[in-house]
């Protein structure tokens, strides 16, 4: 917000006009949709679910107050603990792979060439359609036991993998699919790379820095705020993984891909243990807030802020 004060509009002298054109009124009128929406679709549902998380509500019978037993049961529920584990594993594997790939391609595409915008669109396409059911179905067939990938692995004499039958292999098609949708991170990186002044690079070259040094000492620090933004956005969206796992593996085999959102859906919507699912939502909120807070806290050490130096 800049400090310049705009002259107050006095387009009439009636009290109504003074009220209607006052900055506070105008601000709240325009912000009203957000305030109402935030209360109606976030705060009220969250508070209601906080109440239900202490009941055995199942949407049919009258609910009974059960205190903290839903929360206590969560930590005794092996499927729940496993689902937290596989979700964290998925996030830890998929986000760095995706971001590294996005940065790599964005970097390659900084070369001046007429074809760059064509390439950029080509690489962006997967992230445009990757979230759809259609692509998930394609993935399911590609990695099926007798699917395209296995048949061609066999042709090359490489042992085939029963992707969706093995607890260790099942996560990889989903992680690959996530990494495949690196397009929007790539675009953001590309825009960030463009913002780095060329004079920095020239100065480094004069000082005799090689390409590797330039990358680590100039590109990475200058890009760190953008990396931070991408990291946060991807962390959040990867915690939400649902459609791919729901369509491709249905959480199997033996819960190896039973990600958090999938398990919440199973308990809440399919089995109607709404109290239990509410407790799960709240635990997820706490986990997510903790992770986001950690990223923000540690960011002071690795995000380079130009205005401070």
């Amino acid at each position, binding site marked *: *917000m800049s400090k310049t004060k705009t*002259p107050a*509009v006095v*387009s009439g002298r009636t009290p109504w006009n003074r009220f209607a*054109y006052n900055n506070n009124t*105008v*601000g*709240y*009128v*325009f*912000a009203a*949709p*957000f305030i109402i*929406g935030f209360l109606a*679709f*976030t705060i*009220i*549902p*969250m508070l209601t*679910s906080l109440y239900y998380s202490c009941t055995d*509500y199942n*949407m049919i019978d009258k609910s009974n107050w059960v205190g903290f037993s839903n929360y206590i049961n969560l930590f005794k529920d092996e499927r729940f603990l496993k689902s937290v584990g596989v979700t964290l594993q998925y996030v830890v594997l998929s986000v760095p792979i995706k971001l590294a790939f996005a940065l790599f391609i964005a970097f*390659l595409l900084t*070369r001046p060439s007429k*074809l760059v915008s064509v*390439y950029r669109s*080509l690489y962006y*396409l997967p992230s445009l*359609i990757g*979230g*759809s*059911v*259609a*692509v998930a179905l*394609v*993935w399911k067939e*590609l990695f099926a036991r007798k699917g*395209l990938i296995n048949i*061609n692995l066999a*042709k090359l004499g490489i042992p085939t993998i029963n992707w969706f039958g093995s607890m260790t292999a099942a996560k990889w098609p989903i992680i690959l699919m996530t990494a*495949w949708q690196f397009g929007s991170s790539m*675009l*953001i990186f590309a*825009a*960030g790379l463009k913002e780095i002044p060329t004079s920095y690079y020239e100065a480094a070259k004069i000082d005799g820095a090689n390409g590797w040094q330039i990358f680590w000492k100039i590109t990475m620090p200058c890009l760190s705020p953008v990396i931070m*933004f991408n990291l*946060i956005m991807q962390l*959040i969206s990867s*915690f*939400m993984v*649902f*459609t791919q796992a*729901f369509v491709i593996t249905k959480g199997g085999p033996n819960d190896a891909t039973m990600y*958090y959102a999938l398990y919440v859906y199973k308990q809440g*919507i399919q089995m109607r243990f709404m109290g239990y699912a*509410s407790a*799960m*939502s709240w635990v*997820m909120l706490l986990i*997510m807030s903790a992770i986001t807070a950690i990223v923000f806290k540690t960011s002071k050490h690795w995000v380079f802020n130009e205005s401070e130096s």
Partner: protein
Amino acid sequence: MKTKKIVSRIIYHIFIAGLGFVMIYPVLWMISGSLKDNSEILSGSLSLIPPHWRWENFKTGWAGFGKITFTTYFKNSIIITVIATLGTVISSSLIAYSLARIKYRGNKLIFTIMIATMLLPGQVVMIPQYLIYNRIGWVGTILPLVVPHFFGAPFFIYMMMQFMAGIPRELDEAAIIDGCSKYSVYSRVIIPLLKPALISTIIIQFYWKWDDYMGPLLYLGKPQAYTVSIAVKLFADATSKTDYGPMFAMSTLSMIPVFLIFLFFNRYLVDGISTSGLKG
């Protein structure tokens, strides 16, 4: 030296184009699969050219499930997507204007809440919202899928704020001196200049909503109300053997709106995504 440069340039292009082809191969494979039959799809051939062009897959696929054809599913998807997209673009621009341009008591707090909501994963509120919608009788209607969009989407509010930061404040001030109120500054100054960001919002929200699977899965009960994304999944759920040809045919059709956006509005898409990540 010169030949070395040319060689490196050729290697560069071969590498980038080759990798790009690998990236979109699954999509091309799906499109070609829409013209193959089961045995041709399952043969494991990498070829993208169907041995016989089996257009009948589209007819079989379009026939849908039960008595409900894809005409219904497409109609449902279009209705939901159009309403939700309109809601998002109108409400988000109002909120972005209030946060970016007007100084009022509490605007910092609202901005903080908006960012916090952006960082809140949708799945956290999935069950809580379901409970509320269930209570007010919205489950089984399209209301939960469209109404919340009329109250602003933090991602787009943020994107528009970034964009507005690039519109000189002097324009607002000049308009006010000329007798505009803060309300008409929004409609006469900001909105016309915000056009690129509005278009970016429309197309990004459009394809998000078009592809959305979880929302329709939670709230649409009756088969007559299903969207395309739900219907396409039904091919894989069929109790008998999956008919891959028609499944891929309908998958391909389901992506046509997104492909069209990609072809015609690519620039807005790229700009929209790019600005969201940068400090304005």
